[in-house]
């Protein structure tokens, strides 16, 4: 894909357009997606319903009765885009993470498979700063980039029919924070008491795409205490100054 051809405007049916900046996971590509997303939000284009930022593209859902795709593409090509401003909006969340073996169902397996001790796996996972690249699959499932290479492990051969809520998962070189109970083929290496999706809390979704995520290891007793507070509707992750 040559840089001059980018972005590509692709049809996703006649009610949505995909603006594609690349075909890989790359912070520079994602920065462009976020910058366009912010520019689109600021432009308040009539007929535009919602957008979905992903790793490498922005899906734009529009009302075909209000705007035609060629007119929409024309508007998008001429939007003023401020990449620096988009980046400055990112926040950094420090999220409590419990790696107790009773909750981290696949920690021992991951350690053995990667030739590491469980303590080293925890140190690697909790020592990294991640970028929230996108939400997907289910409400509030946060897809994170920035997993240390030593934790690059393929998916489970047998997916689990269910996984507990608010899990910390890894697979395929990515990290994921889950919310609701769902089947998963990823490895469960911990749990967080934080709810990235809480339908009865404001904000319903804790973090924005583009935010940074760090983990703060807590023991089982602290997890139980924070879990009770989170269940009562209190956010238990804290904000740190981003990009110090």
């Amino acid at each position, binding site marked *: 894909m040559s840089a001059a051809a980018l972005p590509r405007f*692709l*049809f*996703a*049916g*006649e*009610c*949505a357009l*995909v603006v*594609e900046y690349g*075909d*890989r*996971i790359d912070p520079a590509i994602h920065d462009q997606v976020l910058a366009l997303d912010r520019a689109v939000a600021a432009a308040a284009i009539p007929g535009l*319903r*919602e*957008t*979905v*930022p*992903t*790793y*490498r*593209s*922005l*899906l734009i*859902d529009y009302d*075909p*009765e209000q705007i*035609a*795709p060629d007119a929409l593409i024309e508007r998008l090509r001429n939007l003023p885009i401020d990449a620096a401003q988009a980046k400055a909006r990112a926040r950094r969340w420090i999220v409590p993470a419990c790696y107790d073996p009773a909750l981290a169902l696949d920690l021992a397996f991951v350690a053995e498979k990667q030739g590491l001790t469980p303590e080293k796996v925890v140190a690697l996972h909790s020592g990294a700063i991640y970028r929230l690249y*996108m*939400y*997907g*699959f*289910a*409400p*509030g*499932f946060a*897809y994170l980039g920035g997993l240390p290479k030593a934790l690059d492990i393929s998916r489970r051969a047998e997916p689990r029919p269910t996984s507990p809520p608010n899990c910390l998962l890894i697979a395929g070189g990515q990290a994921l924070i889950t919310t*609701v109970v769902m089947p998963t083929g990823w490895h469960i290496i911990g749990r967080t008491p934080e709810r990235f*999706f809480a*339908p009865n809390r404001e904000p*319903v*979704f804790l973090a924005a*795409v583009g935010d940074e995520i760090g983990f703060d290891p807590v023991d089982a007793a602290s997890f139980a205490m924070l879990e009770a507070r989170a269940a009562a509707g209190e956010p238990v992750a804290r904000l740190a100054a981003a990009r110090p």
Partner: protein
Amino acid sequence: MTARLLICAAGPGTTLQDGGRHGYLRYGVSAAGPMDWNAHGRANILAGNPEQATAIEVGLGGIEIAVEDGVVSLGFAGAPFSVMLNGQALPPAGRIRLSQDDRLAIKAGAAGAWFYLSPAGGFDLPPVMGSLSTSLRSGIGGKALAAGDGLPLREAMALPELGLELPPSPSGPIRVLLGPQDDYFTPAAIERFFSTPYRLAPRSDRMGYRLDGPPLDHSKGFNIVSDGIEMGAIQVPGDGKPIVLMADRQSTGGYPKIGYVIRADIGRLAQLRAGEAVRFEASTIDAARRELFAGLGSMRDSLAQTFPLGGGLSSEFLLSLNLISGAQSMAEEG
């Protein structure tokens, strides 16, 4: 006291659906909404409601309802299901008045999969994240409806009873707009997709319609870096068997999407039953838009396609119902 709609019996997967939960797709929340927007909109318009108001979506398991503490006018439309009011057959689409002691029974007919019931005035229920749509997979918007449920209704005037003369249901292939990842397929695979019939697989639901048929070969692997998904996306996983992502689809996906079923045809696809055959045909953005606008226009014009009901139905009318459903079964088999 305002009326309540009572669910006396409901098949699995009977849910409330409005136009969908919009604005949260970026947070991984599926829009949900109706499987057949055209039938859903007709039921609403017949009830005098906005076209994207909340209706009960009824599947093959059917439903039986009654009303408590009042009278309610109900718009109904969808697949040619059997509609019986106190044992008397009604046309498969129209508007009736349901009073205390009345019992409305909807059962699947010879063809089709989804049917909609919309109470005039709408449901008096609190929206969740701006919508009353039920997303069974994520649990947002509550559970499936079940016997014993009572749904509070907003007050509304009783309306005259009507039958709806449905325009002849379009036949022919389901039309598809290629992209955004048609370049992940060999030209032979695209040719095969548009030239061979597929069958709807039994493991199909509100989330995805799985198609049995010749596998489609990928030209550069079957993993893409995830991008966004809308209703009608045709994703092709590693086994080459296409899956059309429907109302309860996930918001993003990592399989290449060969194309999208055009919005005008998505309801027709949704109305297929497991085992039924379907063909696909390439369309264009202009044709997709034209067909969508025509479908919207016909739906919005529903009240002009009605005839008065009342004083019982003629035997000619009941006979015509049989003829129509017979002709449709033959068309499905042919």
